[in-house]
C-alpha cells in the first residue's frame, strides 16, 4: 500500500475560480499528501481519468460559479462505471446560485453521491482531518499527526 494518500483537486466545468483549489492543493501537499492538481475549468471526465491513472483515494472538487449541479449530473454513476467506488468524493466552494441555505446544497450533493459537502469559505485543514478520518474508517491507515 502507498505510504501516502493521493488526492485529485480542481474546479469543475468551466469554472475559472482557481485560487481556492490552488490553496487546497498546497495545503494537502504540505500535509504530506500526494496531489494531482488539475486546476480550474476541468471537465468531470478529466477528474475520473486522473483518478484511474493515479489510483487516487479521493477527489476534492471545487465549484464557485454556481453551476456545479449542472456540471455534475450523473457524475457518481460515471465514477462507478469507471470502477472508482472506493474513491471519496468531496466538494466545496459556493454550490448554489444566489443567497440561500447551505443545508439545501448539502442535501442535494449528498444525494448526488458526494461523501462530504463543504460550505462557502470552509477551512481546508478541517477537511484534511476529515479525509484522514474517512480513509482510516475504510481501513486505509496513514500516520496521522495532531494539529493539522
Amino acid at each position, binding site marked *: 500500500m502507498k505510504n*501516502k494518500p493521493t488526492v485529485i483537486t480542481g474546479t469543475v466545468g468551466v469554472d475559472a475560480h482557481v485560487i481556492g483549489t490552488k490553496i487546497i492543493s498546497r495545503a494537502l501537499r504540505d500535509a504530506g499528501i500526494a496531489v494531482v492538481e488539475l*486546476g480550474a*475549468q476541468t471537465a468531470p471526465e478529466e477528474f475520473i481519468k486522473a483518478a484511474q491513472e493515479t489510483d487516487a483515494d479521493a477527489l476534492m472538487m471545487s465549484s464557485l*460559479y454556481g453551476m456545479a449541479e449542472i456540471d455534475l449530473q450523473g457524475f457518481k454513476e460515471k465514477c462507478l462505471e469507471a470502477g472508482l467506488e472506493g474513491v471519496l468524493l468531496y466538494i466545496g466552494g459556493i454550490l*448554489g446560485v444566489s*443567497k440561500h441555505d447551505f443545508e439545501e446544497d448539502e442535501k442535494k450533493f449528498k444525494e448526488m453521491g458526494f461523501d462530504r459537502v463543504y460550505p462557502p469559505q470552509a477551512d481546508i485543514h478541517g477537511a484534511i482531518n476529515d479525509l484522514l478520518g474517512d480513509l482510516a474508517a475504510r481501513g486505509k491507515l496513514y500516520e496521522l499527526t495532531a494539529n493539522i
Partner: protein
Amino acid sequence: MMISVRQKQIDEEEFLAMRKDVLSLWPTGKEVELDEAVEYQRNLPDSKKFYKVLQKVHDEGRMVLFPRSGTPIVEDEIELVHTLNDLGIPLIPFTTDSYTRNLQFDKAQRGLEESIKSGRPMLNGYPIVNHGVHTTRKVVEACDAAFDPRCSRLANSLVGEIAFASGMTAMPNSFFGWIGGYDKKATVEECIQTSQYLGRLIGYYASKGVIITTDCHGWLPNGVIPMSVNIATQIIEALISVEQGVKCVMPQVNLQGNMAQDLADIRATPRLYRKYLDKLGYDDVIIPGIVGSQVPLYPFPQDMGSAFGYIVYTATVAALGQVDACFVKTIDEALGIPTKESHVESYRSAKWVFDVVRTQHFEVDSEDIRQEEMITETEVTAILDRVLDLGDGDVAVGAVKAVESGMLDSPFSINVHARDEVLGVRDLKGACRYLEFGNLPIPEDIKQFHRDRIAEREKSEGRKMDYYSSIDDFWAISEGRLLGRSSGRPKSHGSNS
C-alpha cells in the same frame, strides 16, 4: 522562442478580412453594417457616449456608482437599467453570460428561450450575440445610459462588433485579465491578438470620429500584493489598444483597504498612463476619468453588517481619492449572485457617502501617501521599462517575453503560462508588500523597503511571514481585519516528505 505578435496596427485589408470570419460565427453577425453602425453611433445623444458622460461627471466634481448588470430577458434588462438610472447611475457595465463568453451560442439560445418561457433568468448574463444588433439597440434606446459590455477572450471580437453596432460606447480590452482570471490555456500571443482586433475595431470607429472608451483592468490581483504589476499591465493593455487606433482609455484603481496605498495609487495611476502614452507618441489619446474598484479579489464578509462596513469604507476611500466612478460589490458577494434588492441597498449605501464626502473637498495628504506614491511609481516604471527593453521597444513582444520569464507575474493566476512565483503579505500598517518577488524587475532598494516593512511585522508578531501568512491576510478582510491571524500551517505527516 519565435514570437509572431507585434505592436503594429493591423492594416485595413487584413482587418476587413478578419471581420468576415468573426461575423460569420453566428447569424446575427450579418446584422452588423460597419458604416451604418458608425452613423448610428454618431447620432447617439451625449448621455449615451461613455467618455462624454464620464468627462461631465469629472468636470462637475461628482462621482457615480459603477454597477453590474446583465440579465438574459430584454424587458428585465431594461427594467434593471431603469432601476439603476433611478439611483443616479449613468454608466452601465453590462455582463454577458458564460456560454456566450465560450462561443456556445446554441446553449445560450436554449438558455434564452427557457428564460423567456419560464420568465426567470436561466443565464448569468445577457446573451448579446443571440439577441443581435436590432434587439440590443432596443435596450440602448430604451435607457438613458452609456453601456460597457463585459466578455472574455473567446467571444471578445464578435461581442465587440455587435455591442458597438448596437450603440454601446465602451468596452474593456484587458488581455491580462484573461491571463489572470479567465483563460486557462490561451497563450499570451493569442490574448494580445484578440485584444488587437478589438482595438482595431474601436480604432476604425475613431477614424470616423466616433470615440469608444477602452477600460483597462490589467492583471487582476488574486491575492494580497502591491498594485504595481496591475498598473503596469493596465498600461501595456492601453498601449496595445491605442496602437490599433483607440483614442480614449479609462484606468481602474483597485482599492485594497490600506488608505495610504489606495490614495497613492489613485494619484499615480493616471499620471503613469499619461507618461507612457506621451513617451511612446500617443499624446492625442484622452483619459476622460478613472474608476475606483473594490476589486482585490478578497473573500467577502458573510454577514450583512460587515459586508456593508466593507462596501461603505471602500466607497469612502474612493470618494476621498476623488475618483470619478466607483465599483463596489454587493452585500451578497460572499453568498451568490446578488438579488436586485441587494444591488439597490448596496449601491445606496455607497452612494450615500459619495455626495457627503465629495461636497467637503476634504484634502488628505501625508508622508505615508507620498511615500507609497513614490514606491508605486518607481516599481511601475521599472517594470514597464524592462518590458519595453525585452521587446527592443516593441511592447507586444516585450509583454510575451515578460510573462514567459516572470518579469510580469501575479499570484494564483489561472493561466498555465503564468509563473505564479510572487506572493505578498501586509505590513504592520496594513499596506501590501511583496514577500516573494519571483522574477519581477523591482529595484534592489525598493525590495529592501518591502523586506524591512515585513521584518517590522515579523518582529512585532513574533512569527515569520510565509505562504500561510499571505493566505491569512487574504482572508482577513472577510473577518473585519487587515492583518490576518496565524491559522497555523499544517504539519507534514508523511515520514518521507
